[in-house]
């Protein structure tokens, strides 16, 4: 930002005091993550110390009571369900935002936006309940058992769609009006304007939203637990029941003790590790975020 050039800003004691306050706040915010990671490491240490990292990827199955700690099938299930949901929600969400900004008559855009905000606030339990009583039986009639990767993807899509749509909407709103006027002056069509001017200009905001959504998809627990079937296996088709890393934690944490419990915390660490990778990748790829 321009203000980082100190010659422009007016020096003031109030500002210095404010900066102090802000740094304390930011420090606290960052400390939350450090605390959480430390906590995860502390809890998973007993089993990591004994058998190491590799066994969690190479063990053939997940039977902690029998000393088998294979997380790989659940890792694939998590990746598959999140990727599927991100693809669907990405398309639908960006389209929703475009609908609000460029296609919908004003009388429809406002209620539509309110509706999407509401969708963001529906508890995951309600999505899960709806999925369990409506969606899963529908799929079961077609391809039993119904509780499947597909059901998980569809429910996740609905859940992360508002995040994509609302952040994309904000990013579209931030595109300078001059760009639109310029495109109109050049005689570009609506689709041309959107594809060549608006979306590229809003790119980094949309990517930031997709990132948030990806995080939410990876971390969603209750709804997936209720619809995805929770069988520990590597999915080979959309209709296979799967168990995600989060569902694994939620299903077993209440009942786990000792190394089993520590193993579940390793699932939490693995999940956080995936998200760190994602965030670093996004930082590299979308390093342009700050010049929106």
């Amino acid at each position, binding site marked *: 930002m321009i203000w980082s050039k100190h010659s422009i800003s007016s020096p003031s004691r109030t500002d210095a005091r*404010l900066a102090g306050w802000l740094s304390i706040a930011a420090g606290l915010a960052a400390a939350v993550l450090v605390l959480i990671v430390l906590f995860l490491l502390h809890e998973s240490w007993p089993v990591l110390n004994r058998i190491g990292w590799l066994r969690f990827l190479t063990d053939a199955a997940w039977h902690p009571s029998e000393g088998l700690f294979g997380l790989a099938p659940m890792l694939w299930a998590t990746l598959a369900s999140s990727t599927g949901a991100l693809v669907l929600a990405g398309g639908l969400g960006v389209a929703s935002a475009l609908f609000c900004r460029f296609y919908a008559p004003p009388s429809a855009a406002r209620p539509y936006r309110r509706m999407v905000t509401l969708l963001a606030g529906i508890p995951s339990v309600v999505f899960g309940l709806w999925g369990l009583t409506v969606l899963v039986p529908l799929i079961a009639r077609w391809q039993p*058992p119904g509780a499947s990767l597909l059901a998980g993807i569809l429910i996740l899509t609905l859940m992360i769609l508002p995040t994509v749509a609302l952040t994309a909407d904000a990013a579209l709103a931030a595109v300078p009006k001059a760009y639109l006027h310029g495109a109109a002056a050049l005689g570009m069509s609506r689709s041309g304007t959107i594809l060549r001017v608006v979306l590229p200009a809003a790119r980094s905001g949309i990517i930031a939203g997709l990132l948030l959504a990806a995080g939410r998809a990876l971390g969603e627990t209750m709804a997936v637990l209720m619809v995805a079937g929770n069988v520990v296996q590597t999915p080979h088709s959309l209709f296979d*029941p799967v168990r995600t890393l989060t569902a694994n934690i939620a299903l077993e944490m*209440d009942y*786990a*003790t000792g190394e089993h419990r520590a193993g579940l915390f390793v699932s939490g660490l693995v999940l956080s590790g995936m998200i760190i990778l994602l965030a670093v990748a996004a930082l590299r790829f979308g390093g342009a975020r700050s010049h929106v």
Partner: protein
Amino acid sequence: MPRLSLNRYLSALSVMLLVATTASIPQAAERKLVLTGSSTLAPLVAEIGKRFEQENPGVRVDVQSGGSSRGIADARSGLADIGLVSRALKPDEQDLKSFTIALDGITLIVHKDNPVQTLTDPQIVDIYTGKITRWRAVGGADRPITVVNKAEGRSTLELFLHHFQLKSGDITAHVVIGENQQGIKTVAGNTSAIGYVSIGTAEYEVSQGVPIKLLPMAGVDASVENVRNGRFPLARPLNLVTKAESEGLVRQFIDFSRSERVHDLVEAQYFVPLAH
């Protein structure tokens, strides 16, 4: 009107936060009982707790849900006064004292439209271990069987495995569920599913028109009545557990929970009260 600076706002806000966190220090005057454990038991014990509070003014009963293992762990560590455990204590848990307050039966359920009326024990074992995979093999339609199993650690699963002498690793499941109602909803939504749930709740759901059917076990009809008279083979005790010999308020609560004064509450949660 004087303008507050942003800094003042921030200072005021942090003071308010501090006050909010310290001002409402709890009144230690009342006596409090903390119970944690089995999600099966939690709704029942919460209801018993409310009645106990009414009869003993100044007493608070806090019930937290979270699984039988947690009930055991919290009772041991003293985090809870009483643990809730929906099974008999295991050999390595004999340091704890258990008090049965109700009984519960477990039975197999299928969808109402499934023509199968009964399954023998070996057939059940073959279905759950993946040797029988289509309903036709046991007299049903030519559809694949959807095996619904409970998640690791659930006492219902342990009871089921123990009864049929199975190991957790032997079972090939198609859907793994957490709580009881998830099992009922899963079977109600899938005509080729089979699962096992608590008898009382299943009977209730049938009476509400939910499309499920209770299968008899070893020739005994699955009914609350048969759990009460001890004929049904697959039953479990619902227990309160404590670390040491209980006394005072804890003792009073346990006695109250085992008395006839809570029978209506036990039945309202579709469990079987103790015979007196």
